């Protein structure tokens, strides 16, 4: 439904292009997790997709008329209006009418748990409630592609699960989603594909399962240095440890090897900060790829 080819974008007065030849394809029903550190080009890419920035170079093709729903980082609603008035206003602006209007409004109110807040002035809501309203207004819009930019900052854990479920429902309904967040566990949950931008270039564009795989391993983190003797133990077990910023990841190990390592760890004076066995998380991958920078 969306295709970008060799998209380049530069801001006036800067020597390096913010986007340097981006290629991207997005299908209906697909959720793309957009990752990258500050200055990587995420905002520029979202601005181009939303039409806020004009395309300078390259191609941007939409299948049909682009219809976008967006949940920006900013609380993009009128603080002086009541919650219901904000929702009604944007329903009018989205040209929602009749049964569809009522249905979408009720759906957004339910998903974002705003039922008992409808008559309150938006400026009087807590930070998390305001974030939910912002989310609801984006979700209310009938669109083919939804852009979520740090949409759940400040939202409590229970509400966050509800919002993430709503994002998953969008893709299940055949909508395309681009989801960017510094909460990588959220991206890991909702995205089927991960796109990592680095200095304006696509550093990685992979299916999440392909990226994280089913390769179970052991992750160890210590407060200070790795205990002496661990490397000799790993060598004796014919294992190699991948050094991470705070510890070590040991991949592809069997039960005997796991038992030997855990016995070694428990025999040490100080306990490790983290001892986790399982599939690597997106955060671990991201930190490894991005040199330890979130």
């Amino acid at each position, binding site marked *: 439904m969306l295709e970008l080819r060799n998209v380049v974008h530069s801001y006036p007065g800067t020597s390096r292009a913010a986007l340097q030849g981006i290629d991207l394809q997005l299908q209906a029903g697909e959720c793309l997790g957009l990752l990258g550190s*500050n200055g990587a080009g*995420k*905002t520029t890419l*979202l*601005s181009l997709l*939303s*039409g*806020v*920035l004009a395309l300078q170079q390259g191609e941007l093709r939409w299948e049909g008329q682009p219809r*976008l729903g*967006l949940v*920006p*980082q*900013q*609380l*993009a*609603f*009128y*603080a*002086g*209006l009541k919650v219901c*008035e904000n929702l009604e*206003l*944007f329903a*009018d*602006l*989205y*040209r929602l009418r009749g049964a569809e209007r009522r249905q979408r409004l009720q759906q957004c109110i339910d998903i974002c748990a705003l039922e008992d807040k409808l008559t309150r*002035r938006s400026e009087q809501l807590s930070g998390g409630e305001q974030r939910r309203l912002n989310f609801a*207004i984006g979700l209310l819009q009938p669109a083919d592609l939804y852009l979520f*930019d*740090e949409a759940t*900052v400040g939202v409590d854990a229970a509400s966050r699960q509800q919002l993430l479920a709503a994002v998953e429902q969008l893709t299940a309904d055949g909508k395309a989603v681009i989801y960017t967040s*510094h909460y990588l566990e959220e991206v890991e949950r909702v995205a089927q594909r991960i796109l990592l931008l680095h200095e304006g270039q696509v550093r990685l564009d992979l299916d999440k399962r392909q990226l994280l795989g089913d390769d179970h391993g052991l992750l160890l983190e210590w407060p200070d240095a790795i205990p002496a003797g661990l490397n000799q133990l790993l060598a004796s077990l014919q294992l190699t440890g991948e050094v991470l910023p705070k510890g070590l990841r040991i991949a592809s190990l069997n039960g005997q090897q796991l038992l030997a390592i855990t016995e070694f760890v428990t025999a040490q004076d100080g306990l490790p900060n983290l001892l986790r066995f399982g599939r690597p998380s997106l955060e671990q991958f991201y930190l490894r790829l991005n040199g330890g920078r979130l």
Partner: protein
Amino acid sequence: MRLWALVRKEVRLLLRDPHALAVLFIMPTLFLLLMAGAMSSYMQDKPPALRLLIDAPQGDASQFFRDALQAQLADSTLLTNSDERLARVRLPADFADTLLDSPHQGPSLSYPAQFDKLSRQRLQSAVSIALAQTRLLAYLEDSGVVDAELSRAERLKVVQQRTQSQINEQEQLASGDLSGRANATQLSVPAWLIFGMFFVVLPMAGGFQREQQSGTLLRLRCLGLNLGTLVLSKLLPYFAINLLQFALLLSIGVYGLPLLGLPALSLPGSAVAYPLLAISVALATCSLGLLLAALARSSEQALLLGGGINILLAAIGGIMVPKSVMPAAMAQLAEISPMSWALDAFLTLLVGHGSLADIAPYCARLLLFAAVCGMAGLLLFTRRVQRTQWTTHY
């Protein structure tokens, strides 16, 4: 539907903003009442009545002089005895005998310290006329032209007929400043009404900044909202607010001021001229508001810029200090202020009883100002909306 939704939103936000309501309605009303009250004794339609002491010898000529003076100062009280400190007109003892002398020694005038300059001039003028009429009567009697058998009232009438001329007076309303002739009500009501109307620039510009800062403008932009719809959604509510201010503050002038013992505002002149003036001023203020909305970069800047420009335009435009008491250079400078044009148009109607044609030049200037500000505002507003960025804080 979208325009109506945005207009309704602007009105709701405005009605819930106590500061904006205070600036648009309460502030000009208070200024109007306070200033009309404060200036009511200074700026009156009629000069204040005088209380005078006439010290004159007995006789027909003295009595005639007194009647002639009373005719000149119809509302004033002429006393023969009083312990009060009053202005005094003293006729010489040989007043009747020396009326036909040339040169003639007239009456002497003495004033208490608090007797103001305007009243002194008025008294001098009235005494000069009464004396001239008394001397004319003496001459006419001496020449046998006036029958000595006539009563004093009849003789006064004869003399008045002989001394009165038909003077053809014409108003040159287009020449501008009528503030010197306006009473406190005629000056205060339009002045603070115009001042209040111009203050719509504050909520207009401030609201736009908040819209941009909060990201709602980004949402509106991504909706592909027509720019004309966006601009109209800002202009229409404030245009309506301006018309409401116009009607409300004029009503206070007409019906409210008399309740406080102040002169009521009457609305003479062309009935069509008032709506035309209201529309011209409203277009000027809303266009200026659009320009400031596009120029300011934050709510704070909008507040400072809008408030500062309004106060400056009011100060030089004769709103705070009537142009009639300004030095010539300042009065000339006032001509650059749209508030001054609006006030001149108002005074042309209220004081000069002008017609639509009389205020047309002022309305034309206001509409030209609206066109220039509107064009510049539209251009900058468009650029501003187009440059709205997707912003990230992380």
